[in-house]
């Protein structure tokens, strides 16, 4: 459903992506792994239309969506849960979720989806009237994922959802990702935590200095000796 075709992206004179191509099939959980600065976040930002590529195309269901404004991509079912969460700290938990459904008009279905998010993350229900800035890091990450789900995405993009969280919470976040995947949500996951990402993913891409270095079924990559030394610590 998503296809990236030879993306070249520059920040000024610095090249961030150097011909990235990849695809995500309907219902699949695809992971992009790689070290800091490999271009993982830039890839997601390019899909979202925040960054425009100098060359190359972004296709959703075969349709060219390169250079569309971010809100138009959300309207096409691409939800982006950004790195660093970027929740709105001065807004309540419930208001943050409302903003996730900003482009929708199906009131009843929106309420049902909010219920679903609260079921997935009961802590958010307890704190729905609280200012989001007062939540703990893990709760903020849950809110960010919940907010992205509120757009009823066909593709959910998660950028470093485990970053800065305690090991127990990292486990919980990956459980949730796995659960969403099993419910049939198509997911594109960006992670530095390669081991966890490869464990839940169907397919994976290894990014290195703006290029796809390796790709294939996640189960195969996890056993690849090259990956083991570079990303899995032996």
């Amino acid at each position, binding site marked *: 459903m998503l296809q990236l075709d030879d993306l070249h992206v520059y920040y000024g004179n610095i090249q961030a992506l150097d011909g990235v191509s990849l695809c995500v099939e309907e219902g699949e959980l695809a992971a992009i792994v790689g070290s800091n600065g490999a271009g993982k976040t830039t890839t997601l930002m390019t899909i*979202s239309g*925040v960054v425009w590529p100098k060359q190359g195309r972004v296709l959703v269901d075969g349709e060219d969506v390169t250079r569309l*404004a*971010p*809100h138009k991509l*959300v*309207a096409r079912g691409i939800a*982006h849960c*950004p790195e*660093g969460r*970027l*929740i*709105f*700290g*001065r*807004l309540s938990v419930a*208001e*943050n979720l*409302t*903003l*996730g459904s*900003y*482009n929708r008009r199906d009131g009843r279905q929106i309420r049902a989806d909010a219920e679903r998010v609260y079921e997935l993350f009961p802590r958010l229900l307890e704190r729905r009237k609280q200012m989001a*800035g007062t939540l703990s890091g893990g709760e903020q990450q849950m809110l960010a994922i919940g*907010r992205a789900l509120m*757009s009823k995405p066909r593709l959910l993009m998660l950028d470093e959802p485990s970053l800065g969280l305690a090991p127990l919470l990292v486990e919980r976040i990956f459980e949730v990702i796995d659960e969403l995947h099993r419910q049939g949500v198509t997911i594109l996951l960006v992670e530095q935590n390669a081991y966890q990402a490869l464990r839940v993913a169907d397919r994976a891409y290894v990014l290195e200095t703006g290029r796809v270095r390796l790709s294939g079924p996640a189960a195969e990559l996890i056993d690849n000796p090259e990956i083991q030394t570079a990303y899995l610590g032996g």
Partner: protein
Amino acid sequence: MYSGSYIAQQFVNGLNLGSIYALIAIGLTMVYGLLRLINFAHGDLMMLGAYIGLFIVTNAFLPLGAAVVLPMLAIGLVGVLVERIAYRPLRGAPEVAMLMTSLAVSWIIQNGMIMSVTAQPRSFRLPPGVNQLHQMGGVSFSTIDILSLALAVGLMALLTLFVRYTRIGIAMRAASENLRAAHLMGIHINQVIAVAFLIGSALAAVAGVLWAGKYGTVEPFMGFLPGLKAFVAAVIGGIGVIPGAVLGGYLLGFAEILFVGFLPPELSGYRDAFVFALLLIVLLIRPNGILGASNEDRA
């Protein structure tokens, strides 16, 4: 010392002046929150609003309410147009470019008015009925004072409801916290910014009409000082935060009236110096303003 009624009178005056500053400051703070732009042209929109009000009042074929509603509509649209033509193309440019543009817009509007209606101050005379004075326990106020206050407070209450409960109001608060994150959530940023300019400019127009009604004259430079002081009010209250603009507006209004009313006469001519000294003191104690976000939660 001062009698109770004298103090009460100063209180009424402060309330009136504060409402006007608050109405102007709201637009400045909304725009700053979204674009980090100090909109120098904002005071000039207030002036334009006063002129439209003047036109309606002097050609009294319309009810008095029209002197408020029509300037709001017209100046709201002018604000949206200014953003569309002058500021939007500079989105993403260094902040100073937009700042200079707003100065340019300010001068264009002022000079445009001098060319079309001359710099001659014109008297703004209200229909006799609304200037009637009332006495209550030694405090005097006119009908227009009460109408102005009710209008200002009513509009601010409406704005509060709008920002708190409507979809676009929530989006506006989100966008002023983090424009990029709001965009990623699917919020149509340009729409939110246009609405902010529409509301802010309409409120400035009301302030212009009230100002003209209070001081009785209208001239092309009348927007400069109130615009500047409203900016001070917004900064005192915490720029980017709407309740901060309202609080700052009233604080400034009261402070100014107090300086005039209670300082020895030979010092009251320097009231503006005292107003700006107040700004310095507030900022020394609370660098982000009274209700402003602390730097940590500014992403």
